[in-house]
């Protein structure tokens, strides 16, 4: 009987040798005359173990990792096709504590299924949500999303149900659903994991959203830096069309929904929803003033629902399992689960989906295992390049939108980047300003000029020139950017800058400058 071996095709797995490994396994099997089926799954998101190989045995899927191509003959000798012992053997995949302790709802299928196999998707609960949605009126679908407590996962955490209802009620014959897949926040990779590991979840979520708000056309605005996600999405879309889940008659409902991928072109600001819409219209990605809200006048002036990939990929679960199943998880007004992305200087980086309320400390130590270098963790940046730096003294903070906001921090898209005690926080502050200067769309003055002036101020601070005066200027500049910018790019760049200054003032002194210059 043929044995199935899983080697991820996720780009992070490919980045550390999964392709060579897959080839080596097939070559070795052919040489030994072993009947083997090589399946290409997504990544489980346990990145320190990639490339992670799984073998389907009668006792379940047994994991080995990280495995190098040169380990393959030895693995065959060790009888890994029957789950045999080897130094890289990790045991049953579901029993790896990092995975076992999670509650994966949005990311339930990543790494489990072949992302391009629609039957595999269907066998694991796929399209149950759509079929439930088709049994209900649009306002009932929206009511389910509202009742679930789901909030926008892209960073703004706006209640999804309210946005959906605004688009649903907006007058207009033509409406759009847009997936914001411009995952530009450094430290973030959950959108990519979904698109590469479970693309039908996004497609299904968008289809349900279209039914709810009355849209017939959807776009996935994908960043060009994700060529693997692009290829996977294109193939999945073609499959969904062939199977009748997209097009003129969605799942036999008589309703039309067309969906296509549009590529961005390297501009971070296009992750801001109005800049994204400008870009989709074929223009420079300049932020629009609000109002009007995109929900009322969005793409090509029509009512448009823009949601992040994670938000949309969570929709099928809510429809299939009911709003209550989702709503009962979480903390405070942060309901459901958050796919947390743990990266940076950390021993076990990866995807951790857990209900809101889990503390940074649990994430960083129980899951992450502390720093990769073995040195003490000094700071984490939560919520992307515009998120605040959180010092070790605050690691007991629970992940909760309101708790973070009260601390002057943000959860953003759920990324956590860890730094050990060798990090120079003044340099990180400069980096944030330089990033803003490079990525500003230029429409508003606080962001366009403030970021560049900020870099100059930080250069003085780093060199120890007039430090006190410059820091007063930096605080003032930060306040101007925060209050006066048109969108979150200029408005939130002060978060990493001023949080670094507040929590790590010792890195912003003349003495620090002297030791920096050696």
């Amino acid at each position, binding site marked *: 009987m043929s044995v199935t071996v899983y080697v991820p095709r996720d*780009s*992070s797995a*490919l*980045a*550390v040798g999964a392709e060579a490994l897959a080839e080596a396994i097939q070559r070795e099997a052919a040489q030994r005359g072993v009947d083997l089926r090589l399946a290409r799954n997504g990544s489980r*998101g346990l*990145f*320190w173990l*990639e490339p992670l190989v799984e073998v389907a045995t009668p006792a379940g899927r047994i994991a080995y990792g990280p495995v190098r191509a040169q380990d393959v003959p030895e693995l065959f000798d060790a009888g890994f096709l029957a789950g045999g012992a080897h130094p890289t053997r990790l045991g049953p995949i579901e029993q790896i504590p990092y995975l076992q302790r999670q509650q994966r709802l949005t990311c339930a299928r990543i790494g489990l299924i072949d992302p391009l196999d629609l039957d595999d998707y269907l066998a694991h609960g796929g399209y149950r949500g759509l079929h439930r949605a088709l049994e209900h009126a649009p306002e009932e679908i929206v009511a389910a999303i509202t009742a679930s407590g789901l909030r926008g996962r892209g960073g703004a955490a706006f209640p999804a149900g309210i946005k959906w209802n605004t688009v649903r009620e907006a007058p207009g014959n033509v409406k759009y659903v847009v997936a914001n897949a411009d*995952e*530009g*926040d*450094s*430290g*973030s*990779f959950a*959108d*990519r994991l979904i698109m590469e590991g479970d693309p039908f979840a996004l497609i299904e979520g968008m289809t349900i959203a279209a039914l709810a708000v009355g849209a017939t056309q959807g776009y996935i605005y994908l960043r*060009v*830096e994700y*060529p*693997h996600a692009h290829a996977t999405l294109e193939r999945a879309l073609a499959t969904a069309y062939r199977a009748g889940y997209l097009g003129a008659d969605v799942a036999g409902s008589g309703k039309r929904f067309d969906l296509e991928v*549009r*590529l*961005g*072109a*390297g*501009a*971070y600001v296009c992750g801001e929803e109005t800049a994204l819409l400008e*870009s*989709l*219209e*074929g*223009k*420079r*990605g300049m932020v629009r003033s609000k109002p009007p809200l995109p929900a009322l006048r969005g793409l*090509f002036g029509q009512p448009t629902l823009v949601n992040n990939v994670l938000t949309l990929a969570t929709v099928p679960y809510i429809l299939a399992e009911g709003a209550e199943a989702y709503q009962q998880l979480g903390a405070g007004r942060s309901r459901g689960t958050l796919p947390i*992305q*743990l*990266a*940076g*200087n950390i021993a076990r*980086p*990866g*995807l951790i989906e857990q209900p809101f309320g889990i503390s940074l400390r649990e994430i960083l130590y129980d899951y992450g295992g502390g720093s*990769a270098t073995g040195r003490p963790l000094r700071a984490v*940046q939560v919520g992307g*390049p515009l998120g605040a730096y959180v010092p070790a003294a605050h690691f007991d903070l629970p992940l909760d939108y309101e708790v973070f906001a009260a601390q002057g921090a943000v959860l953003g898209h759920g*990324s956590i*980047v*860890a*730094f*050990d005690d060798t*990090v120079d926080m003044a340099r*990180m502050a400069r*980096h944030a300003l330089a*990033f803003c200067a*490079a*990525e500003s*769309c230029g429409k508003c003055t606080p962001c366009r000029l403030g970021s560049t002036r900020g870099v100059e101020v930080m250069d003085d601070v780093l060199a120890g020139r007039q430090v006190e005066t410059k820091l007063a200027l930096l605080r003032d500049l930060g306040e101007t950017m925060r209050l006066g910018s048109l969108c979150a790019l200029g408005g939130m760049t002060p978060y990493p800058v001023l949080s670094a200054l507040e929590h790590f003032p010792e890195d912003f002194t003349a003495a620090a400058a002297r030791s920096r210059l050696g």
Partner: protein
Amino acid sequence: MTPSAWDETTVRRVIDAHKERPGALLPILHALQTEFGHVPRGSVPLIAEALDRSRAEIHGVISFYPHFREQALGAHVLQICRGESCLAMGGEHLAEHAKERLGCEFHGTRADGAVTLEPVYCLGQCGCSPALQFDGEVYGRMTPARLDELLREKGLV
């Protein structure tokens, strides 16, 4: 990608294939860059005419997006991730090493035209930091030594 020489017929064919799509400009620019390795200057008036927009507007869009370029790059493109996760794992050191090895700064091309070095703000490979991309292929857990090895494999040193 192998950049081809200027060829108006091809440019017109690419434009015609996309011009009826809503918001056609980015798809056209992507298709031209895939075809030529860059967006040839001479295509700007042709795009403007097809979309009934001004040449300044087309140029403005090309120059807004870091991905689009009007000049050909080196034969190979090496992009080093500048995201915070990569910086936390030695990304700065990796970038300095790449500059030294290639003898050029970011946005520069090695003297022989073989490789262009570019910064990229996050490749989404934060679980395998530091990361880089070489001609569209991603590489994680990079070190200066592994970068040298990669450049050797590609026949660049």
